Each structure stands twice: as structure tokens, then as C-alpha cells.
């Protein structure tokens, strides 16, 4: 088995998992949910094996380095972190409904990495600037953070949908009739969803901070400047501020529910721009991430 076969298979496994979780959501198919969890777990294991294989293969080619050095490899790790974070949440909250809002991100990331024309998938050697032990720490911390924010966004969307439904129902003076619950009614209560969003943001914020800091330390050891207002750095800081707003509003003003859900959605747009947009639309020190 080569890493590209394993990672290629992962794409389809996540597609299958997405499909199964959608079945749970739309048809309330309980068994599909159990299968969904199993398939996601298999996906994470296959992907982990693929990542390790790619690592090993790079050493066999004599250009050994952690598989975190270009856009394709970052998409793989992003998808891996999303699927893994989701599984953790599923275990903690014992609810499979959320899968349909997390697994599509893991699938989309892999699918984009596997099929987009502008993405280079071959293992290539490290340019001198990337030859550092900080590569692993910096990229890994950043992507754990990004993945947590992706999960917060997915679940934020779900919160907004459920919240709208409940408000509409209330406005119409209707009640939930047993046996006729809609998909959204079977989701955890809004309060629990709100808590998951908050915890994902907290988790992401900690890792994003660590990612920015490891980046600064690395930049200082490579160029002698820990902060140079390069577009990627600046956008990571912008993202950091957006989530800092969410945390302060919650801790001091008790914000929750819809407002935090919206911040989770908008914050993730900022994450996507930091991750992806900067590389494609703006130039700067992080240009090696763009292909």
C-alpha cells in the first residue's frame, strides 16, 4: 500500500461517512449512525496510516520530512484533525446527529486536495526555509486550531437552523408532537449545542495561539524577526481577534446562543482566508504553502 492509495481511499471513506450521517439526519436511521461512526473511525485510521506512510516514503526518497510542507499535505492534516475532533465530540456528547455537519468539511478538504488541478500531490523535498524542527510544531498546532474552528462553524450552522425552527414554532404557537419530531428536534438541546460551540472555540483559540507563537519563534530562528506583519501572520492575528471577541463577550457579557453561533460562522471565514485565501490572493513569506 502506498500513501497515495491510502489517502485516496480516505477521500471516499469520508464521502461514505458523510452520506451515512446524512441518512441519520434525514431519515433518523439509527443503524446508519453506528455504521457512520465505524466508517469515520476507519477513515481516521486509514488516513493516519497514509500520513505515516507518506512520512516514511519521503525518507525512502532521501528527502525525509514530516508531511506538512505544502498545500496538499496541509489539506490532509486539516481533514484528519476535523474527523478526529468530531469523533471526540461524538464520544463526549453521545450524539450522532452532529456528524452531518462535521464530516462534509473533512471530505471537502480531502476531495479538494485529491482532485483540484492546481494542487501538487507528489512528495517534494523541503526548501531551505522549511528545514526546521519547528515545521512540525507550527503546522500541527495551527491545523488543530483550524479544525476546531471548522467544527465550531459546522455546529454553529446547526444551532442557527434549530434555533430558527424553534422560534418559528413558538411564534406559530405549535408544540412538538411525539412521533412527529423533525430532524432538528432530535438534535441535542440548544443549550448543549451552544456549549459544544463554545468549547470548540476555546480549544481552537488555545491551539491558534500556540500556532501563532510557534510561528513567531520559528520566524525568529530563521530570519531574526518574530513578527513582520506578513499577510499570513496578520490574518492569523485578525482571526485571533475575532475569536477573542467571542470569548470576551461570553465570559463578561454572558453572550451565547445565536450571537456566538454567528461568530463561529464568521470566524471560520476568517480562518479559511488565513489558511487558503492568503496563499492564493496575497503574497508573502508563506508562499510555499500555495502549491
Amino acid at each position, binding site marked *: 500500500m502506498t500513501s497515495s492509495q491510502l489517502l485516496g481511499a480516505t477521500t471516499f471513506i469520508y464521502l461514505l461517512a458523510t452520506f451515512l450521517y446524512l441518512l441519520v439526519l434525514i431519515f433518523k436511521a439509527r443503524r446508519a449512525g453506528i455504521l457512520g461512526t465505524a466508517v469515520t473511525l476507519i477513515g481516521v485510521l486509514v488516513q493516519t496510516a497514509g500520513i505515516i506512510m507518506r512520512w516514511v516514503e519521503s525518507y525512502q526518497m532521501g528527502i525525509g520530512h514530516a508531511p506538512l510542507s505544502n498545500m496538499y499535505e496541509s489539506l490532509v492534516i486539516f481533514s484528519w484533525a476535523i474527523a478526529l475532533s468530531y469523533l471526540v465530540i461524538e464520544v463526549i456528547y453521545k450524539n450522532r446527529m452532529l456528524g452531518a455537519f462535521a464530516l462534509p468539511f473533512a471530505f471537502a478538504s480531502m476531495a479538494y486536495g485529491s482532485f483540484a488541478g492546481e494542487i501538487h500531490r507528489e512528495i517534494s523535498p523541503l526548501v531551505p526555509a522549511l528545514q526546521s524542527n519547528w515545521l512540525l510544531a507550527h503546522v500541527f498546532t495551527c491545523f488543530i486550531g483550524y479544525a476546531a474552528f471548522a467544527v465550531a462553524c459546522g455546529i454553529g450552522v446547526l444551532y442557527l437552523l434549530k434555533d430558527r425552527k424553534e422560534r418559528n414554532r413558538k411564534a406559530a404557537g405549535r408544540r412538538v408532537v411525539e412521533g412527529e419530531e423533525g430532524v432538528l428536534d432530535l438534535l441535542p438541546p440548544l443549550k448543549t449545542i451552544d456549549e459544544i460551540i463554545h468549547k470548540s472555540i476555546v*480549544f481552537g483559540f488555545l491551539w491558534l495561539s500556540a500556532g501563532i507563537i510557534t510561528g513567531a519563534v520559528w520566524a525568529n530562528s530563521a530570519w531574526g524577526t518574530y513578527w513582520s506583519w506578513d499577510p499570513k501572520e496578520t490574518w492569523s*492575528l485578525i482571526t485571533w481577534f475575532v475569536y477573542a471577541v467571542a470569548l470576551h463577550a461570553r465570559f463578561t457579557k454572558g453572550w451565547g446562543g445565536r450571537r456566538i453561533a454567528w461568530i463561529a460562522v464568521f470566524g471560520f471565514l476568517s480562518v479559511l482566508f488565513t489558511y487558503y485565501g*492568503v496563499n492564493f490572493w496575497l503574497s508573502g513569506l508563506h508562499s510555499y504553502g500555495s502549491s
Partner: protein
Amino acid sequence: MKEKNVLWEFFTSVKLAIFTFLALAATSIIGTIIPQNEPFGFYVENFGPRWATIFKYLNVPDMYHAWWFVSLLVLFSLNLIACSLDRIPNVVRILRKDNLAVDIERLEKRGKNRRLLSALPLEQAADKLRGLLAGSGWSFASRERDGGVLFFAEKGGWTRFGVYTVHGSILVIFIGAIIGSIWGYKASVMIAEGTSTDQVYARDERHTPIPLGFRLRCDRFLLTYYANGMPKDYISDLSVIKDGKVVLQKRIEVNDPLQYAGLTFYQSSYQPIDNQYVIYLKNTTSGAFQNFIVMPLRQMRWEEENVAFGIVERRNPNMLGQYQHKIWFSDGKGSPVSFWVSENQPVRLERPGATYTVEVKQRFATGLQVAKDPGVWPVYIGCTLMLLGLAVVFFMSHRRIWIWVRPEPQGGGCRIVLSGNANKNRDGLEKDLDKIESLLNSSNELQVQGG
């Protein structure tokens, strides 16, 4: 005094914090879209003369150092300081509070209280409780009050300072940045192989020379490639020379700089020097060796070894991208020879009197970034504090538990009320209460029953 209060309220408000976050985030975008630190002409060409003038007026070409952006950062810092000064005394008050002086009546009415019954008389129940708490890892105190005994136990009081550690860490980072900008500098220098410099050039418009106080010599620059043609390493062998003596030698590459006397030298660029080559000659019989800077078609002499040599012809790169050089060589013993060598490939030369190795390479100048930044350590300390502080804020809490034991009028037993309070993570507190409750239940002598 009222006006002062208004000002104080302004600086201590969370609204101001949220405003500065959003303002810093929004204005920061400008500098990621409009290229920074370009000459005026660039902005005229890309945005037209009117916008270029507006940009110049607002210092947009260097916006992260512009007065208005720095003002935002100052506002941000003031807000941080004011918030901490405003709230820390409160925290101290909470931590110093006599928690055994609570209003019992209100304590009994708190929501989520747990009520238990014990068959033991008050004194024995209280003693038992003392024994249980002593081994539980909670720091606790008790007091006889209103005919019963009140226990207070707490954990993690210090974690209330976590948030101020995070806020303080940002200020520490700012202090580091200020120290760096006052007492540090960024400079650069190009040093040709075989030469040395005692000054570097500031990264300003005039490239002001800055004396080093020692000499830095580039002994060798190496450029290596991967098989696919991508650059693999940029390497410089550097020597620090103080008072005519080499005091430090280091091979630097990207991500592995040289540090000396508070300065750090980073590999940042290189430049081939036109029509100049470096030839390394070694007499392997006697061990003598020497480097020469050579221009083609000029005869060189190695006096000590009585050797004459030169490059007589060059050929385009071979399949590996290496230039070929034809060397003419004479050491006075046997007839002179000429032979081809590939760049960076040492060759052995057998002569009647001795064996030599010959290596030819392009002569380069190495480009070094130079940084002096005494503020780096405060910045790193601030970063560490921030991560530790965030972990405390997000994962730890101050939990307080009151246990109120009073005699039951009938039956000679007593009633126990368990009440808890946490500044966050109420779920964690409930788990603690569960634990204490099961501790009470597991102690047979207490004979606690739900009630």
C-alpha cells in the same frame, strides 16, 4: 471627580476591549491588501496619484507603524492595564473573604444544594467530616455557628489570576517589542568568500553603516541542490575575528544562525561574483593547503609549494548543472599538465614529487541578515505566560464548597447541607460534589441517607 470616573469606566469597559479587537482586526486587513513599504511611485502607478497622496498622508505604506495604528495598540494596552487594576482587587477580596461568615439561611436556600441525613449526633458527624475532608485534597476550615458546624473547602483559588496572566503576557510581549525597537536593530551585509567585514548596514533608506566591534569573515559559501533541481541548502562557513584572532567558527544555514556578542547572523541570500572562482589546493603529501581567488586566464602562484596554476578554459554545465573548468598546473617537477575538473568536485592529481587535490568553484558573496534584539526574551516569556494563562483560564476553575451540619431536633441525628460554587465549569463542580457525597455515603459510621 465624576468626570474621572467616567474616564475610568471608559478604559475599564469590556466594550472598549471588544471595540479595539474589532478595530485592530479591521484595520490590519488594509496592510495585507495594500503592499507595504514600497516606494511612493509604486502607489501612484497602482492606485493613482490622489490615492497615493492619501496613503502617504495616513502612512498606509507602513501602516503597522503609523500613528493611528500604534494609537490603537496603545489604547489596547491601556484597556488591558485598566481592566486588570480595576478587577484584581476584587479577586483578592474574593480570595480573602471569610467564607465561614456566610448567611446560613441564604446558604440553605441555594439551588442545586444537596441534602443528607445522618444518624450520628452533631459532634461525631462533624469529627467524621473533618477526617474525611483532611484526606480529600481540599483545603478546608470549620466553625461552630448557630448551633451547628459550618465547613468551608476550596480548590484552585489562584486560578482566578489566570485571565490576568494572559492580559499581562500581552503587555510583556509589547514591552519586549518596545525594547527591541529601541535597543535593537535589523541590518544586512554581503560578504564575498575569502573577505571579512567589520560593519553591517542598517535596513533603512540610507543603509547606515553600523560597526560590529569585531570582524566577520566568510570562509566559504556552498549552494547545494536536490536531484530535481530545487535548492537544498545555502551554507556559509563564518569566522569571527577579534583582535586578529579567530574566536568562533560556525557553519550557518537557513534556520541555523550564528550568534555572537548579542548579534545573530542569518543566512538570507547569496550572489555569484562574475568571472571569479575559488580554487582549493592541497598538497596531501605535506598536508599544506591554501585557497585562491582566481580569474580565468591569469596565472596564479602558490609560493610556499612552488606551484603555478590557472584556469585556461571553461565549458557549459554538464547534466548535473556543474560547470567544467580546464586547469593548467605546474609544480616544477615533471612537465606541466592541464586537465578538466567539474565544479565542486575535488580531483586527485598525482605528480612525481607529491599528490595534490584540486577543487574549483564559483566565488560567491553570502548575504546575511543581522539582528540585534534584546527584546526577544521578554517576548518569549510573554508567549509562554500566555499559553500557561490560557490553559488555566480554559481548563481550571475556583471551586468552593460549604457543608452545613446541624442537629436534627428529632432522633438525635443531624442534617447535612452540601452547597457549591464555581466561577466556571459548573459540571466539574458537580462532579466534585458527587465525590464528596459518595465519600460521606461510603463512611458507614456516618450513616448518611439521602433526605
